């Protein structure tokens, strides 16, 4: 037996290991830097006044209450539409569809949708919802644009969890003489709640971070409205407000405050997605 591997091999192995470690360190370091930098810059800028007032050119006040409300409204409105659409499409694909070609077409369409850049959604949303359906620039138009964007997400997560509902449950229910719809309502849908919830969490994350698709559909206004009134009027979400404050008004303090809020929410959403995933996995394994 030879004593050991050659120097050349040793050098190659060492090189690859160092490159791997550097890459991992860089990736992890980037995240650490981004989170701490944004927090350090943004958290001190957050004040009660900022969170609870609206901006006014007259008094020079800057407040992001309208942007917070707009974000909440747009998330609620988008979820109300996207859940039934996405989950329904998943149920169709998994429970009803017999035609393989049609399934392939629908799945390809969903994949295509998830690859389309948000700026294109924004443009088509503007043409279709704002102009063609005459919704004007409004939160509702923005929300509907986001519905199309998030459709594939909810579709996919629901479909994945539908696949984990054991076939025996369905057979059992059919065997008791239940009709198809009854089986779906009582056995299949309750079994895929986890997928729907995961899809919602992911969608909320995406909506929270979305800006390009909202610029021309939901607009830039900073007015405080109630929910239904708000949906019919234009309004900036937190991300759009961040963009406007940073790029067009040079108000970096506010921008960082919003960035810090977004960062905290992003972290919370990640955590929620992880916990929900773990919770449902545990329940399923029982």
């Amino acid at each position, binding site marked *: *037996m*030879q*004593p*050991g*591997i*050659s120097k*050349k*091999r040793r050098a190659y192995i060492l090189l690859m290991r160092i490159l791997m470690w550097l890459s991992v360190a860089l990736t992890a370091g980037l995240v650490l830097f981004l989170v701490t930098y944004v927090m350090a810059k943004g958290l001190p800028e957050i004040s009660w006044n900022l969170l609870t007032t609206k901006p006014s050119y007259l008094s020079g006040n800057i407040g992001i209450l309208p942007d917070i409300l707009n974000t909440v409204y747009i998330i609620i409105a988008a979820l109300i539409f996207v859940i039934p659409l996405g989950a329904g499409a998943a149920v169709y694909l998994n429970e009803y569809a017999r035609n393989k070609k049609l399934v392939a077409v629908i799945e390809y369409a969903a994949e295509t949708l998830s690859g389309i850049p948000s700026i294109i959604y924004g443009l088509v949303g503007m043409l279709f919802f704002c102009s063609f359906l005459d919704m004007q620039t409004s939160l509702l138009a923005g929300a509907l644009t986001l519905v199309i964007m998030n459709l594939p997400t909810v579709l996919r997560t629901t479909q994945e969890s539908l696949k984990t509902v054991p076939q025996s449950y369905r057979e059992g229910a059919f065997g008791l003489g239940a009709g198809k719809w009854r089986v779906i309502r009582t056995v299949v849908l309750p079994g895929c709640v986890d997928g729907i919830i995961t899809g919602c969490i992911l969608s909320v994350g995406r909506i929270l971070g979305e800006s390009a698709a909202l610029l021309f559909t939901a607009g830039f206004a900073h007015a405080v409205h109630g929910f239904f009134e708000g949906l019919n009027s234009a309004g900036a979400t937190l991300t759009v407000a961040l963009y406007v404050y940073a790029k067009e008004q040079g108000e970096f303090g506010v921008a960082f405050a919003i960035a810090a809020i977004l960062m905290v929410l992003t972290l919370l959403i990640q955590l929620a997605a992880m916990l929900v995933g773990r919770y449902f996995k545990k329940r399923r394994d029982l």
Partner: protein
Amino acid sequence: MSDIITVKDLCLWYGSAQALKDININIPEHAITALIGPSGCGKSTFLKTLNRMNDLIPGVKITGEVRYAGQDIFAPGVDVNMLRKDIGMVFQKPNPFPMSVYDNIAYGPRTHGIKGKAKLDDIVERSLRDAAIWDEIKDRLKKNALGLSGGQQQRLCIARALAVEPQVLLMDEPTSALDPISTGKIEELASALKEKYTIVIVTHNMQQAVRISDQTAFFLLGELVEYGDTETIFSVPVDKRTEDYITGRFG
């Protein structure tokens, strides 16, 4: 005939479960040693200890001594990669890499630093000839190895193991996934290979052990129950448990 591998008081634990108990065995060179015994008796574990493939499993603890060519294989100075170069292995399921036939064979030599097309060509041809598959696939060297039949894949894996010029070849139930004809070819091949190599083969198939092996070791519940000439073991076993096993009373 001298012994190429000597094993003394070998014990092995997976976590707290003991899988091998005080194994003592000497494996002679240029012979085929068959390891038989019911599933879970530790024969595969023992085989994988010989080239330290068990090192990969977390929680494994080993005591005792295994010497290969006089060298303790667990000694701190031993390079496990060199050990595995000398003690090659063929697995239960044929596992060619998803590359061309040529690249499969050349993988080992390339890893160990052999370059140059002429040299590699030579090694590839020689290994494939030694594995008795050259004539069948010499025209398909550039084709993906996954396109071969199961039996061809397994012989390719043997050729791949031969390409790094090992001294010992460990075979872990190499024919269990194959049809009878392919099995026959592999057995023939094994018998031919013992001229140049030492072979240790785990098998479930007692006829196979009788057909090809010179020595047979019978394992049961992590113990080496009996070890000796294949003829002796199968005709006049000393231990009652061996007799029960080879006569098919359990297994």
